[in-house]
């Protein structure tokens, strides 16, 4: 196992005391030319020490093995990430100091450490970190630095192996919200044996990642010289288009108690609920890196949605502009669930053309007042009401209270028996695996 790892560890040996071998060599030459005790002392003390340290460090270079393992490939906010580090020294001399410098980008993950390994022994330690912030992070690479006690040499190992860790937003249990269905009752009922949500293709659109190859409309693709796929009619009782509006002008609060984080949690929870209720769920995010995921209901959709939500960050584009831009991509006669913190009534005008296409919006407004702003949301409510659009105002407390309960991965639970013995009743189930 270790041998396999070494292949990836590039090591460099730096000479910090170049004067030592030089003095040792000169002393040797001078001893031959003009013998003196001085040369012998220099030769033995300086040249000898240098040679000894060189032998020591070269031995460590060949015999120091490092392995880094983790338990999970992904996590949710609140989960505990556990990493295991193993440092093995097969050499006859110890590594009196080894600095392990971690290059991970995961917040609050302090894996850098200075330790030592005895001769022919193994040192192992674990680092546990609670994932506190959603995002996609890199775990690794690792740089090991060691050397002789005199600092004549510095030996550096570069372990470039790293792994991507997606920290998903948490999913919380939401109260029941009424989601309005669009279209007409019984229209386009889904054939349970059909592969798609409906069998009626309405138009074509540009192919996006995750679209199956079989949906490609080859004639149109050939005509427009780009891949186009069939866009099916929405199922009135089925497709949910989730629109997460992260217009940066509307964001309030900081850190975990910000509208941005709560909007992401809310979107993730709504998406989970939709999928749980067997709705195909699509996602459009008005974020810095615009994301558009078409409605699916397969088992990978939730992870795809959560991954997209994990990296979502506020956008420069206004809510109104984004709605106008994304409107064409939303299937007709589907439910549009808008999660926003923007209580400005102006952008609601953009909903009107959508309703004309049989799309029924439902707005989840994060109450700006609960985030420290003083805003009058009545105008916003009236505007939606006039369009027969349902609006749910979500307070900060609703998300915040449930947020504290999340994070189960990597968590141990113990029960103390009557004899005082601690018994693990829940342990992390995933096995250790090396960083890829």
């Amino acid at each position, binding site marked *: 196992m270790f041998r396999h790892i070494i292949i990836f560890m590039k090591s460099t040996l730096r000479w910090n005391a170049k004067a030592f071998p030089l003095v040792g060599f000169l002393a040797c030459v001078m001893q031959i030319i003009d013998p003196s005790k001085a040369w012998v002392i220099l030769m033995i003390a300086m040249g000898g020490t240098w040679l000894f340290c060189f032998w020591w460090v070269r031995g460590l270079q060949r015999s120091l093995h490092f392995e880094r393992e983790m338990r999970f490939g992904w996590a949710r906010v609140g989960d505990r990430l556990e990493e295991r580090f193993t440092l093995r020294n097969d050499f006859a001399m110890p590594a009196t100091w080894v600095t392990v410098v971690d290059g991970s980008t995961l917040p609050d993950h302090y894996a850098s450490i200075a330790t030592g390994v005895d001769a022919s022994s193994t040192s192992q330690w674990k680092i546990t970190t609670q994932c506190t912030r959603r995002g996609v992070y890199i775990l690794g690479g690792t740089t090991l630095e060691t050397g002789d006690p005199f*600092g004549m040499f510095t030996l550096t190992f570069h372990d470039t192996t790293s792994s991507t860790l997606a920290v998903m937003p948490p999913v919380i249990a939401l109260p029941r919200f009424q989601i309005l269905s669009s279209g007409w009752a019984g229209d386009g009922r889904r054939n349970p044996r059909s592969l798609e949500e409906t069998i009626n293709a309405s138009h074509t659109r540009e192919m996006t990642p995750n679209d199956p190859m079989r949906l490609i409309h080859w004639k149109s693709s050939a005509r427009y010289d780009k891949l186009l796929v069939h866009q099916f009619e929405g199922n009135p009782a089925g497709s949910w288009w989730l629109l997460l509006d992260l217009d940066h002008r509307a964001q309030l609060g900081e850190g975990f108690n910000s509208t941005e984080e709560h909007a992401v949690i809310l979107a993730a929870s709504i998406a989970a609920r939709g999928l749980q209720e067997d709705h195909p769920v699509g996602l459009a995010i008005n974020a810095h890196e615009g994301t558009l995921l078409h409605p699916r209901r397969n088992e990978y959709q939730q992870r795809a949605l959560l991954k997209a939500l994990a990296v979502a960050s506020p956008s420069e584009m206004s809510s109104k502009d984004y709605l106008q831009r994304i409107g064409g991509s939303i299937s007709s006669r589907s439910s549009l669930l808008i999660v926003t913190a923007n209580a400005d009534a102006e952008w609601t005008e953009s909903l009107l053309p959508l309703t004309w296409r049989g799309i029924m919006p439902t707005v989840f407004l994060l109450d700006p007042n609960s985030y420290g702003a003083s805003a009058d949301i009545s105008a916003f409510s009236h505007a939606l009401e006039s369009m027969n659009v349902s609006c749910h105002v979500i307070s900060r407390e609703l998300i915040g209270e449930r947020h504290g309960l999340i994070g189960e991965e990597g968590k141990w639970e113990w029960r103390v028996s009557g004899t005082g013995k601690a018994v693990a009743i829940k342990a992390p189930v995933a096995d250790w695996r090396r960083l890829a």
Partner: protein
Amino acid sequence: MNEHTLRRVFRADVIGMCLVLIAIQVLLYGVGTVIRESESHTLFWICMMAAAISFFGAHSRWKVRQLSAALITLGIIAVWIAGAGITGPIVDLIRGLIAAGPQLFPQINYRFETNVPNVVMLWTAIGDSSAALATRLQASIYDGVEARRLSDVLITNMFWMFALWLLSAWMGWFAARRNGMASLLPGVMLLTYLVSATERRAESLWAFVMIMLLLMGIWNFKNHIQHWEIHHIDYSDSIRFDSSQFILLVVAVVGLASYITPSISWRDIRDYLRERQQPQQIETLTRPSSDANTTTQSSQRAHTSSLPREHLLTAGSAQSTEMVMTIKTGELSPVPLQSVSANAPRYYWRSVVYDQYDGRGWFTTSAPPQSISANQTLVAGLLTRHKSLHLDVQMQQPDGRLYWSGVLYSAGVPLAVDWRLRPQSSLFADQTDLLQADMFAARTEATSYAAESLVPTPSIEQLRAASSDEYPEHILRLYFSLPETLPKRVHDLAKEITDGQATPFDKAKAIEAYLRATYPYDLNIPAPPEDQDVTDYFLFDLKRGYCDYYATAMVVLARSSGIPARFVSGYAPGDYDAANAQYVVRELHAHSWAEAYFPGIGWVEFEPTGNQPEIERHASNESAGKTHSEDAVTRPVFGMPISWSVGGLFIPVVIVFFAILIYAAIIERLKLMRMTPHAAIEVLYRRLYRSGRPLAGAPTHAETAHEFTNNLIQTIRAINLDSRDASHDLQSDITDLATIYQSALFSEHRADQQHVKHALMIWKRLRWSLIRERIKYFFWKQNKFPR
């Protein structure tokens, strides 16, 4: 004492500073071989001051240049004060000026009693002392310009003091940066030079190197701790103990090895093993050794008396042209033209000195221990009437080898011979000898050695002025004795020869002249009768003879006339080989001569043998001094002669080499770090550009750094078609340096010191690689585009 206190005391910084102080003390002890030891106490405080100023200056906002200038200025002032001995007057003067302050500034509402005449007197004393010192310094500089020996001990000491001041400042500066190697390496070099030149106080060098290793270990650990704390890296306490343990262990082992190794004789080990393996041969093998020991201990017993070289009577060796040895003094340069006759100085190559005459011949009495009080000159007239002479002796006979117990030849009074004591044949029997011995010089295959001698150069005027009433006790005891059986006619002859001569020198000259003029030189003479005094037989019966007879007669007549004299055997100067600038001594040059003692001057050679040239002496002090300076070919540096032999020539080369090394390792880095990161990176890129331009071809219009590196890499690839892997790192380094340069120029992020360090590291790798590539490029071009 609780754990907290112990931890504070044993902090790396505290231990480091203590070691630096010890290192300064050790350095001063080592330098004590060339400076007056009585000043070591003052010197210690001066060095401490330099180290402290430098240490705290390094932590201040002062720039390197400012601090260096301040240290040099302060050093000159401190050395001047110490040299002129005006510390006391200056302190008193400052006190006087402070007392006078309130009178000058009425705002100070306090009155001291001011002794103005005293202040003026102190000022005058300081001025006088400084003026006297300036005069001495001027004279010494003049001596230096004239390539004469620097004889003023005070000025020599001041030079050393200043050098040590600078060295201590250097140590303090790098101690502040916790760089053990840079801090102590110059001191190591200095001590190495002194120990190799003097072969004294080698333990100071040993201790200094050990301190350097300890400091390197301690400060390396401390630097790591600091790095970890800055970067919030959690570290284990066990590292402290593991590191300390291994530092001490390695230093102890290396220290022991470097202390003992110079004292191990592999020859003895071999002998010992042979003796163990071949018990039957022990006697055979140890017999010569026993003889040698007997000879070594010869000074403890009297020899059987005889004329020293009876073999000459056979006239065999006396006329043999077999070469005995060649001697180089380095006074004259080799002259390739055989026609040019070199006027080489004449030296007698002394081997054995005899002090007692018993009528049949000569023997040497034991040399009892002598008590020498402090500041007493060991060699009379050492500073003024001798010149130092360096000899490189190459032995040719007997069988071209030197032995531990053998006789070494040198001119004048031997001062030092690069020959070590031999350990006793039983392994580790005598620790004193063992620790003083030198493994590498202890080989019996050695055929050469070097010696430092003092050759007396008194003028006739000085010899005549020498008093005859101030003979030391041991001279009176050993060098006046004559056997009671010495016939009266010998005494009468002595009286007759020296009658009318006023001074001992004139008497000795008269005896010498009488013997040279009266008795013909003859090797074919019969052996002296058993019952007759040798001197009497030579003077009155034989009336001819060879050098032993002449020298014996001279010594006996001199002693009879009240002049302390002794018999010396060795070799006459021999033939001077101008082409090789060496004296060639053959068996036929074997010789004896007489020496007479003159108080305040020492032993002076006389040549009573008629077939040898008379010894030339200068009439007056002036001419002697002039000749002395002209003859002085040894080049003194701070009072210590260095011959321009291989070793002597090597030292400047080593100094230059280390200067380059120090520049490359330290100064270059310091210079770059002092610049702004942007400018430093630009400097490094320019270096790459200059080195790589010949490889990258002619520059194009508005060539970018990217284009330049591309061209450079393409050429390197073309040169290294067969070994692409080898040039991969080089290409990668070139690209990296160019990228850093471009980032520093165009990136929004400002370059910082880390970028400079990275760029410097890359450049250090590139520097030699590019030179190598240019050489390869030259040959590649020759092959590809032959003319």
